[in-house]
């Protein structure tokens, strides 16, 4: 600790005002910014100061009480979670974590909605007549998107409140800072930069011409790939028109032009012929699917991949036998209490087996790990962060394959 200097000792999210802005980024007044700062600090406080108490309660109260009543230790993460639900420490943390997410959605939506028409007008100016935006109003939203709104985001990625609306893109983009406490960096793109860096290091001779990101929303993780390979053309597909419309405007405003945004379901990309892409990417995407749609998407990636190409999926780590049951139960929280219903099942699946079933060869599978790449002068670096926020930390696994 450095001699009572609060600034030198500071450990936590940066002030929101360091966030990177672009033409479609919503205007935020003083109090809106401070609401985001408060909520980012709430999440940081819960992870740094409240979770250790939940862990201690699990070890000292919850697990021993289960063993005393059942005559055996807790056997799996579901038993661990149900036992935790009886404990006041877990319940209090859960209530606060849920409320913080609800407050974040309300704060972000207010900012986006109060200027919804102005944002739509800017989006129109930026994207009108541009063939790099291809929307399909006949597209039906699948059950895995429509049943519950992912991470309690009302209207999810796809709801439009009026023609040309970008509200749900603007909300998702500008207030995502709250959930990761700034760990994704200035343009919430630390994940994309991490993937680009991983590919350059591990596949130094790889020169993709056509790159596809499935479920790329506003392009947070896609633009860094387009920037890292300026000779390539980057295609972003997503189910939601508001995020795609916002995404192209955002990309153009940030000077990234080798991109196109296409509304389509990853399960049926028949708009693209076989072997269309050198690189197919998904980033923090698989957990928002369903078993059947994940299988269909993996099969599509196999069909669309060119010989010598790669598919990469970036996700939070899978549940493995060596991962403590407490950690597994905590990671399951988002599945049951933050409207991420596929999270739990997806993280226990044998993804290698799924890739092989989709047509990839076992000896051509790819495994790796990445942490968000951020501007370290301004943002905390996940690689240096020893806090664990169970499912939200900007440290991911990579699973992929080449053909």
């Amino acid at each position, binding site marked *: 600790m450095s001699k009572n200097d609060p600034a030198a000792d500071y450990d936590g999210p940066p002030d929101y005002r360091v966030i990177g802005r672009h033409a479609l980024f919503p205007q935020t007044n003083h*109090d809106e910014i*401070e609401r985001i700062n408060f909520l980012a600090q709430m999440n940081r406080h819960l992870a740094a100061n409240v979770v250790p108490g939940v862990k201690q309660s699990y070890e000292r109260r919850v697990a021993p009480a289960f063993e005393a009543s059942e005559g055996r230790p807790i056997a799996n993460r579901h038993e661990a979670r149900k036992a935790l639900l009886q404990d006041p420490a877990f319940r209090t943390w859960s*209530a606060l974590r849920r409320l913080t997410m609800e407050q974040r959605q*309300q704060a972000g939506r*207010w900012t986006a*909605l109060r200027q919804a028409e102005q944002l739509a007008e800017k989006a129109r100016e930026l994207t009108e007549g541009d063939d790099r935006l291809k929307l399909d109003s006949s597209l039906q939203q699948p059950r895995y998107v429509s*049943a*519950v709104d992912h991470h*309690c985001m009302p209207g999810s990625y796809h709801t439009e409140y009026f023609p040309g609306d970008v509200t749900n893109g603007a909300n998702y983009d500008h207030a995502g800072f709250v959930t990761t406490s700034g760990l994704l960096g200035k343009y919430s793109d630390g994940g994309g930069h991490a993937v680009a860096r991983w590919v350059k290091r591990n596949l130094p001779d790889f020169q993709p011409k056509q790159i596809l990101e499935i479920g790329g929303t506003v392009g947070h993780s896609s633009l860094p790939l387009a920037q890292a390979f300026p000779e390539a053309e980057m295609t972003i597909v997503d189910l939601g028109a508001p995020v795609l419309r916002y995404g192209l405007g955002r990309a153009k405003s940030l000077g990234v032009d080798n991109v196109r945004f296409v509304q389509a379901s990853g399960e049926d990309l028949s708009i693209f012929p076989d072997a269309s892409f050198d690189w197919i990417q998904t980033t923090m995407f698989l957990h928002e699917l369903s078993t059947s749609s994940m299988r269909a998407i993996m099969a599509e990636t196999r069909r669309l991949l060119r010989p010598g190409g790669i598919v990469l999926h970036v996700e939070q780590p899978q549940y493995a036998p060596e991962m403590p049951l407490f950690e597994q139960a905590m990671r399951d929280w988002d599945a049951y209490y933050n409207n991420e219903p596929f999270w739990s099942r997806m993280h226990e699946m044998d993804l290698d087996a799924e890739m092989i079933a989709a047509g990839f060869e076992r000896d051509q599978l790819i495994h790796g790990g990445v942490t968000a790449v951020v501007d370290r002068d301004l943002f905390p670096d996940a690689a240096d962060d020893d806090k664990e926020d169970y499912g939200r930390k900007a440290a991911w696994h990579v699973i992929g394959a080449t053909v």
Partner: protein
Amino acid sequence: MSVTDALRGAGAKPAGKRPYFLDAEVERVLAITMSIAQELAVSRQRTDTLERLLLEKGVLSQGEIDSFVPDRAAAAERALWNQEYIARILRIVQQENEAVDRPDDIASEDVAAEVGAQS
């Protein structure tokens, strides 16, 4: 979009039944409390912004707020404000205590039956 619509939309419920971790009454009060805590933080930061701007513009000097000593009249006004503020917040405690002295208090619902009686 009208302000009313934006406010309603901002607070909209996401699709998906809400889980409760505490007694619903307790969780409801906690939700309201945490929103007020958030707005208090926002207010506090706004004051801090104001102080820093006044300092930068030379209206205030460093340490002036922390070394501020109100004169006798100002001290009384400020103390009264605190008393009034606490009295407002703790109204229910006052009223519950007053109720102890009113063992014969009767509910309006019961009076309604009494005063509305036909004969």
